[in-house]
């Protein structure tokens, strides 16, 4: 821990442990944000088990599986970039972060085509086809769009966070001496990944 001493004898700390603790607390709030949605999902799936099964048939598990692999790999690259920055290999860390961003983009492109396909078939709230669905099926799709949409926003937020880390590495503020912010971005990215790991089976793999 670094410390600078003021003229008055006050000590200004750089508290990495505190910053990490703050990030973990923030992640708890994110888990609970999605937790509320998982409660809603559980309640409506319990009431409409068959409709949720039918709804799930409309989703392509292959695309879901590809996205899962993409996100898992991006978690690996972000973790590797942290060990690269710790050992002072700035260039490698930056390449790995760019790779993570590329995976994030790939995920979103995939999602775009997936959503686009549903919307093309009129399976979006308010559209013609949607009105013919049973209550349970429409709840399935509403939850699908709401939860994957919110998750998509988190991917974008995580991407921006990583973009800032790249900026700070270039400015020399994230270094092998001071990398807590980088670690925190990694933690956030892992969380986004973990949430998807739950979303994938809950929507794509209902038998």
């Amino acid at each position, binding site marked *: 821990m670094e410390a600078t001493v003021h003229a008055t004898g006050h000590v200004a700390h750089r508290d990495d442990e505190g910053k990490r603790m703050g990030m973990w607390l923030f992640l708890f709030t994110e888990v609970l944000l*999605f937790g509320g949605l998982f409660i809603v999902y559980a309640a409506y799936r319990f009431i409409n088990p068959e409709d949720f099964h039918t709804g799930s048939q409309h989703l392509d598990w292959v695309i879901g599986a590809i996205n899962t692999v993409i996100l898992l790999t991006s978690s690996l690259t972000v973790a590797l970039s942290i060990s690269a920055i710790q050992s002072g290999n700035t260039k490698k860390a930056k390449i790995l972060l760019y790779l993570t961003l590329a995976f994030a983009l790939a995920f979103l492109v995939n999602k775009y085509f997936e959503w686009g396909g549903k919307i093309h078939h009129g399976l979006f*709230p308010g559209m013609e086809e949607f009105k013919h669905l049973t209550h349970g099926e429409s709840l399935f799709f509403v939850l699908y769009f709401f939860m994957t949409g919110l998750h998509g926003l988190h991917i974008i937020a995580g991407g921006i966070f990583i973009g800032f880390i790249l900026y700070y590495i270039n400015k020399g503020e994230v270094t092998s001496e001071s990398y807590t912010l980088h670690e925190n971005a990694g933690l956030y990215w892992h969380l986004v990944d973990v949430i998807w790991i739950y979303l994938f089976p809950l929507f794509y793999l209902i038998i």
Partner: protein
Amino acid sequence: MESEKMATEITPKGYVNFFEESHGLKSWIFTHDHKRIALLYFYGVVGFFLMGVVLGLLMKFEMITPGETIMKPQTYNSLFTLHGVIMVFLFIIPAVPAIFGNFFLPILIGADDVAFPKLNLLSWYLYVIGGIMALSTLILGDGPPDTGWTFYAPYSVKTGTNVIMAVMAAFVLGFSSILTGLNFIVTMHRMRAPGMDWMKMPLFPWALYATSWVQVLATPIIGITLLMVVAERVLGVGFFDPSIGGDPVLYQHLFWIYSHPAVYIMILPAMGLISEMIPVFVKKSIFGYKAIVYSSLAIAFVGYFVWGHHMFTSGMSGQARVVFSILTFLVAIPSGVKVFNWVATMFKGSIDLQTPLLYCMAFIFLFMIGGFTGLVVGALSADVHVHDTYFVVAHFHYVMFGGTGFAFIGALHYWYPKMFGRMYNKKVANIGFGVLFTGFNILYFPMFILGIQGMPRRYYDYLPEYSTWHKVSTMGSWVVAIGLIIIIANLVKAYRKGEPATGNVWGGITLEWETKSPPPLLNFDKPPTVTHGPYDYSILNK
């Protein structure tokens, strides 16, 4: 102790306090100093509180006669909704943590600021934005919401009023609350002064610690729930509307999963204030320090599992109702532990009956009435009778206004000299207290009687047999208003003309009394080292 001696003397010449450190608007709205942020909150919160009071007074005035007195039913619906939204989200939730927590938490644990000063400023901005959004419903859109502060579905997804804006306001305010809680937890874990182990931490920080966890772990649920209400209104999807497959009771579950813990966000810090003040005015160590610590944590913990008691009449299984009722009764135990501890602290102490102690005693008295009536509504059979009546309104106001509100005003009188460096007129303060206390009981006690008689809450009109107690209650609201005017006028006058306050006005031994009034920018001249427990008044004999 050198620092103590110094602090009791009148401030030396050349001393620069945190007010004088820098000047101008920019030095305030971009400040990272926790004391200035606390004062920014203070002005905002008090402003919203006064708006809430005016709305409440208008409501009470409407109820002085049956039928229309000064407003139409729709206006009345909007008034009680805005009164609730303002008082809950803009006053009671941020009042104690964001003002006194921000100002005194770092000082009480001997730190120079909170862990994340920039995040702290961001919380204040979110608070202001949320407040403006809530008020904007008055002029923007199709009129202020008329759903009640609970935004119950399916009405909230069907009414034509500006629910989206109000709901988004609550969402933004929730964010502000989460960030404050997060900041406080890390501050207490990482920044306690040398020598202050957990069991030497004063009880107000302990109460904030328990509260902060509730803020962090409960608030996201309301956030997502409110987003679902917005999605339902914008996209016309059926999360909660039964006509398209949704379940309105599920909304109530989600709402109370946050909003019941939220009432502990409102009351726990206030209890911390009482624990902080009583030992100072009886010059005696607090009775059962550890019991108070653990009861705070227990209230925060058990408080998560009682939300169902708001829904005893909304359609839940018998088993669930019994379980929720039992758990609700359990919360009364740690609350009772605290009351016994406060009274036992005063027993055989050398009681110095200053204004803050008067508020503490009023708190205990009013909180007991509010607490015991809470058991009445927590009991299944009794609740079926009094649910959604004035009884519940009275219970809530006894706990929230009689509890948190009185603790807030009491703490303001306790710490005012420390925050502003000036002393108010104690005699006028005591008169203000007396008027407020009297008015409070005239205003709210009749509501218990009305509730038992069957007067439903949120009704614009009533049968003639209720009119006597409604009139009494309305007159009580005027007495409350007079009391508040006396209190505020006294404090405003003190700000301009009060006697300069010494560092240690009340003879307290917690850390805030070891520094000057108002404190310097970094709180202490020298970083403090803690050698005694927070309420160990035996050191005065040495």
